[in-house]
């Protein structure tokens, strides 16, 4: 715990996007002007993204008060209230026992939102680099690997391969030169765990990576971070320079024989470069295209040399494991999934943000207890897990524990931790189409089933959502999906059909409604819906006709209005504007 008084502003990308920079400037300026005994500092993602910008006031006595939704006025009020009781800030104050935080268990995110990510001193003050020192000065590489094995840590990138085993395999490869690579090419739509960790606690990742390098015998490594994460890259560059200056990286680390040089390679944003063989091709300067494994990277990796690749979150666990001991870590979680997992909670959820929970927590608790359930009036329908490679878990399975194997059994996957909550206004066919459009667009184009097969699936889905579905489309989708799954070169192709397969598994009747009855049960697919005015409810307020961009609604003031279906583009603005629930969305036969 820090002993000085601080005002910390969450300055991850999420915070900045919500206006944290202005808040930071106001706080800095005003604190200086008022000569207040507080340091205004930037910190990483505090997690409660639904309340950004977030400001935490940390008293010298260790007291902490967290404020959300802080604008300029609130910032001034926060300063006004220093030393006294907060006034006019009741809405902003987030108590530490707020449900959003109460159920979390923070290991990876322990420092995130707590320390200044650009200060190595703060990291060191929080026991930073002690694990690395311990490893290189008092442990053999084999002992490190044993410790990781004992922790039961599995890869957090999605596949869940046991980290200790991976390191052991790499260690066993003979060769003078080995590489270690940190995969920070987080690409799933809606996922931002890796970015937040890199932005909020870069040294933890560097330390974990250095320990990994020591364990396997690598002396060089790469951070592969997508160029769309400029802040993460900036902080990583700074952190690497600081670590080198302190001798935590470079030659003879902590006086041992262990040397390590780390570089940053900025990815150009191709989703497939998150796949390890494509990632390595990209580092080598070639087009990011996967190749068949075996040989695995541990055998033939970068420039044909042994290479160990782990995800950001995996590395972020390592220092903590050495600190608390593998056995202690293994107490967290389930039999086969140890530790915690960070999730990016998004979609139709009341409290979205970044959360870290122990493995095995039922999905219901994550969504309802932490996330606060569905935002708005809708009804929970499903949660999409694992991004485009994952699948949808329906309401009936909401009590499933979040661990690797339980999730896989549902047809979804743990993935990197994207969790998109959907309510009953979501069309599941459209969701499948959306994710498939993403993978199709991001397919590298190398192998047939992924390049052409997903395109054909997408065309069928587009057809269905446009009301042009035919009998046999569902069967064609299933046939394609099954064959693409088993006949693709890399995980991108192998998992691309998952959103379709899981929605077909749990929501098949929605597909059938589209095809057979021309009906979109969620009233989402524009080609299948009609907006109509319920004359009984319409007061003739003209709000809808004013809002309509195509002048499709007409009617006299104070009389019922009418929608001209020929002009209507089904944007839904009238529906949103109407205060009397007079606009109905009809689908299928009702729409005629």
């Amino acid at each position, binding site marked *: 715990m820090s002993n000085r008084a601080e005002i910390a502003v969450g300055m991850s990308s999420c915070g900045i996007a919500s206006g944290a920079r202005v808040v930071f400037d106001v706080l800095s300026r005003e604190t200086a002007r008022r000569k207040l005994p507080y340091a205004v500092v930037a910190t990483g993602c505090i997690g409660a993204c639904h309340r950004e910008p977030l400001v935490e006031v940390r008293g010298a006595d260790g007291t902490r008060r967290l404020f959300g939704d802080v604008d300029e006025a609130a910032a001034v009020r926060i300063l006004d209230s220093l030393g006294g009781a907060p006034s006019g800030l009741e809405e902003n104050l987030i108590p530490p026992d707020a449900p959003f935080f109460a159920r979390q268990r923070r290991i990876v995110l322990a420092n995130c939102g707590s320390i200044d990510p650009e200060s190595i001193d703060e990291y060191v003050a929080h026991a930073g680099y002690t694990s690395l020192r311990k490893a290189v000065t008092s442990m053999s590489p084999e002992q490190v690997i044993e410790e990781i094995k004992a922790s039961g840590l599995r890869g957090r990138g999605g596949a869940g391969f046991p980290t200790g085993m991976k390191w052991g395999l790499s260690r066993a490869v003979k060769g003078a030169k080995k590489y270690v690579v940190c995969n920070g090419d987080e690409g799933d739509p809606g996922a931002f765990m890796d970015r937040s960790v890199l932005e909020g606690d870069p040294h933890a990742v560097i330390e974990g990576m250095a320990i990994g390098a020591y364990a396997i015998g690598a002396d060089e490594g790469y951070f592969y971070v997508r160029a769309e994460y400029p802040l993460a890259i900036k902080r990583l560059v700074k952190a690497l320079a600081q670590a080198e200056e302190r001798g935590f990286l470079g030659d003879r680390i902590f006086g041992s024989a262990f040397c390590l040089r780390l570089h940053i390679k900025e990815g150009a944003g*191709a989703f*497939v470069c998150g796949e390890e063989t494509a990632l390595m091709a990209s580092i080598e300067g070639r*087009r990011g*295209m996967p*190749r*068949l494994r*075996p040989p695995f990277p541990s055998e033939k990796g970068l420039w044909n040399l042994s290479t160990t690749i782990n995800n950001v979150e995996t590395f972020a666990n390592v220092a903590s494991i050495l600190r608390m001991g593998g056995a202690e870590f293994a107490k967290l979680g389930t039999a086969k999934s140890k530790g915690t997992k960070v999730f990016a909670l998004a979609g139709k959820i009341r409290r979205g943000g970044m959360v870290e929970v122990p493995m095995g927590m039922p999905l219901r608790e994550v969504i309802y207890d932490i996330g606060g359930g569905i935002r708005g009036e809708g009804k929970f329908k499903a949660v999409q897990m694992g991004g485009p490679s994952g699948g949808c878990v329906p309401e009936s399975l909401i009590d499933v524990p979040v661990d690797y194997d339980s999730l896989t059994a549902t047809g979804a996957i743990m993935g990197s931790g994207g969790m998109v909550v959907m309510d009953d206004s979501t069309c599941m066919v459209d969701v499948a189409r959306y994710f498939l459009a993403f993978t*199709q*667009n*991001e*397919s*590298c*184009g*190398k*192998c*047939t*089933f992924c*390049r*052409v*097969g*997903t*395109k*054909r699936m997408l*065309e069928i889905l587009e057809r269905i959502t446009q009301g042009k579905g035919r009998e046999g489309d569902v069967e064609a989708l299933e*046939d*394609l999906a099954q*064959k693409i*799954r*088993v*006949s*693709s*070169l890399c995980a991108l192709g*192998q998992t691309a059909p998952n959103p379709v397969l899981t929605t077909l598994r749990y929501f098949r009747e929605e597909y059938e409604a589209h095809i057979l009855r021309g009906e979109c049960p969620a009233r989402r697919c524009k080609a299948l819906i009609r907006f109509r005015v319920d004359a009984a409810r319409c007061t003739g307020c003209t709000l809808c006709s004013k809002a309509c961009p195509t002048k499709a609604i007409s009617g006299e003031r104070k009389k019922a209005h009418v929608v001209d279906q020929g002009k209507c583009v089904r944007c839904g603005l009238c529906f949103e504007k109407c205060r009397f629930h007079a606009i109905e969305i009809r689908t299928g036969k009702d729409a005629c």
Partner: protein
Amino acid sequence: MADKIEITLDGRKILVEPGTTLLEAAEAQGGRIPTLCNDRRLEPYASCWVCLVKVEKAKGFVPACSTRAIPGMVVSTGSPDVLAARRMALELLLSAHYGDCKAPCTLTCPSNIDIQGYIGLAANGRFAEALALIRRDNPMPATIGRVCPHPCETACRRGLADEPLAINGLKRFVADLEALAAPAAGAAKAAARPDSTGRKVAIVGAGPAGLAAAHYLLAEGTAVTLLESMEKAGGMLRYGIPDYRLPPAVLDAEIAAILDRGAELRTGVTLGKDVSLEELRGRYDAVLLAMGAWSGRALRVPGEDNPSVLSGIDFLRDVNAGRAARVGRRVAVIGGGNTALDAARVSLRVGADKVFVFYRRTRDEMPASPAEIDEAMEEGVEFTYLAAPVSVEASGGRLSAVRLLRMELGEPDSSGRRRPVPVAGSEFTVPVDTVISAVGQYAEIRYLETAPGLVDEKGNMKGDPLTGITPVPGVFAAGDLLTGPDIAIRAVAGGKHAARAILAYFEGGTYGRPVEFLSKKDDFRKPTAEDFSGTPKVPREKRKAVEPGIRKRDFREIESGFTGAQALSEAARCLECGCQDVGECALKRHGQDYQAVATRFLGDIGAHPVDESHPFIRRDPSKCVLCGRCVRICLEVRGIGVLGYMYRGFSSVVAPSFGVPLGEDKSCISCGQCVSACPVGALTEKMPKGKTAPLEETVEEGVCALCSVGCGIEYRRHGGLLTRVTERWDAPNHGKLCAKGRFGHAFLNEAVPSSALDAAGNPLDREAAKKVLDGLLRGAKRPLLRLSADLCRETLEAFLEAARRRGIPAEAYGLSDLDPRWADLAAVGTVGAQHGQAGGLCLIVGDLAASHNVAFTEAYRMRKAGFSGLWICGHGDAVARRVADRVFPGAEGIAEAMETALADGRSLEVLSAPEALLRSLGKAGESTALAALGKAAASGRARITLYWSGRNGGFLFPLLSRDGRTPKPTAAEADLLLDVGVKDGTVKGRRVVWANRGEEAALYLPLGHDAWIRGTSIVSGRGSISLGKVDAGSVTCSLFA
């Protein structure tokens, strides 16, 4: 060598070498696993997934090409799920493969004549080969070349660009050309009669179907008797088509050619009258019925029984048979088909003043060919559309008028044409004295009802129109009899297939038309005019026709044929729609094997324009299957990387960097390696100075004679046309070729003048040529013999010997600037060297990549395989820097590299090309290189191989450069140049030139292609090899000797 490992392949335990892929393992067992992306010149890649197999315990299927055997592996290569997944892979690829395996013209032709093939041959001036190709599917090209309404031309894609190709005119041209060259001969004379099988077939009706069937039956040794009810053979061709469209002499010649193969023709014999079907069945092994459809349909209007109402087909038959056929002064023809038009035009020719054609629909629906309608209109025939007769009027027994009713078009009927509907009260009368009814024909075959099952209830012939097989065993049918009235080429096709059906029947089998797997653009998106907006417009060649005013009074043929020049330029208009790779395409082959349905997945096709920018390579990205072989072979094998991937997902394309046209990519060395790697037709070769066409090829192994590397090649020919040169898997090229080898042999398609020519280009006989040569030699004070090192050793030696005897000095053309010291090294170099001594170092001196790319690439291959190191000195472009371990640029780099290499201690392989080195580094650089190479040679640790641009540079240069005794004049000083194989456009005047084509010279003497591509050659690093025999005596014409 590590121990073999055991795997289970389809239930059998087998032993394989470690590192073997499952594809290799299966192939070694004789199994066939399909693949598109695998290429043995390249590392496995696993992009197409057509080779997928099942491996026990593996997650999903695995690609056999890239999965290496591990002990205990259990592999299944042919289970139903594997086959289904492979089929889907093929169907997915096919759904995004926008191309035509075969051209629409060929597919539209009822007899599927290889139109693109013969047009391509004609465009290359190979008219005889073109005719032979037509005859494969049509034994009557001169006839069909005149009468066919050519649906092929309607289908011709050139029509979308400007006007369709004159396909039929070209067919007629090549057929007439042969007839003109050998009027009495015909092709049949040359065709040997096969041994008789003892089978006998009776063919009833000697029309196009019967004659075609006879042709194909005779070719297989079957005896044929043609029974013809008319006086002469020819059927509808003779008696239904007027002479002005088909002169009888043309038909006679083609029928004679068929009969000359041994058919018996019995005329004046009518089935059902003179002989019965039962009798024929008793006497012959099979009977083919091909009597045609000769009965005219009735008008079904009052007054029709008037004797001046004629049946169109009867009228034409009478005129054609030379019988009296009178029409009145005003003639009304009812109908819109070809019979109607022929009857109208013939009416004019037999004396009518005014001829009307009445048709109940509009011109657009008229079955007659548009050209014929135009010609009839030119001749003054008056057309009235949307009119149908209601009665024929007579006064005093004489026909006086025809009454008609106006029609309008209603809803489409079953034929898809809009049905004519009468307009009430619109009757009108046209005074005429003759009415010719031509509203349709049918076959009157009630007399065949004695054979049960042959005639259906409507009186039509029963049988499969595709094969001619009828319900009665041993009885077949073809032509109009079976199909109803149709065009002649369909009857020919019917005869052809019926003949095959009969042959199959003899063998006890059944016959079905072969079903070929075909990819067709029309299945996905029909090409439009927009697709051809970039095609330069070239008007269709026009043929001469007799003026309408003159022609309508007689029966002379109206249209003349193309001239030779017209034929060549017309054929050159062909857009080559059918895929060049149709014979070798792996996608087509696998598609056929796996019964893939090309249209199973319809969707976006990703069509791209064809890239014609490269002189030798055509790139059609719409056919690309993204296997990546071209990309990899260019980068991995050649070290260049011209082609690469662009974009992602379904939009991915393979294209040159930044998407520039291939022809504009300066890094391309035109080696054609990408073409040879492409498993489909996305990359195909264009033969320089000629038209490409997908043709059946004969393959002849050879060794490339265009430089001293000596690559294994295959000459591919169709008849006398060299279509392509492809690579062989021989040392030293291992499946590689350079631009010279692949595209440099086009000269073999140029005709060598057969006789000597004087300065004015006039042919000289042997004696005259000898006189001119002797005169030139006598008058010369300072003659000089200049020899091209491209020629074979026998030729060179013969000339050297002759020159020595006459005391004429000789020089190696193009090599005289080289330092004579190369000769010492050349001697070293001819000792059998192989690239890449294990653990050694290969040192390339100069830009061998540009001058001898195959040798360069081979050194790169050995380096990549880890067999030897590779240094490049004297040169250092981007490619050199990419592929070599060390680069020492510039002339000074040579000395430095050589010293470093000698100090390195490894054994040294030195490769260099003296001419290229001199060109790029100049005299000083040459001198530096020679000093360094001399040192290396003296060390005894280096083996030096020199590559020459002429195949026999290694022989000729040492021989002549050491010959310091004879004082030689320079070319400028010499008063007579004796140039052998030397093409030197800069020297005019007093030259004697031995070459394979004309040069400006006082005397030209022919030298056959053989002297370039056969004979003995000195191959760098391998010594002397023989490429076949060359008669050195004949090449020197014995004149000089």
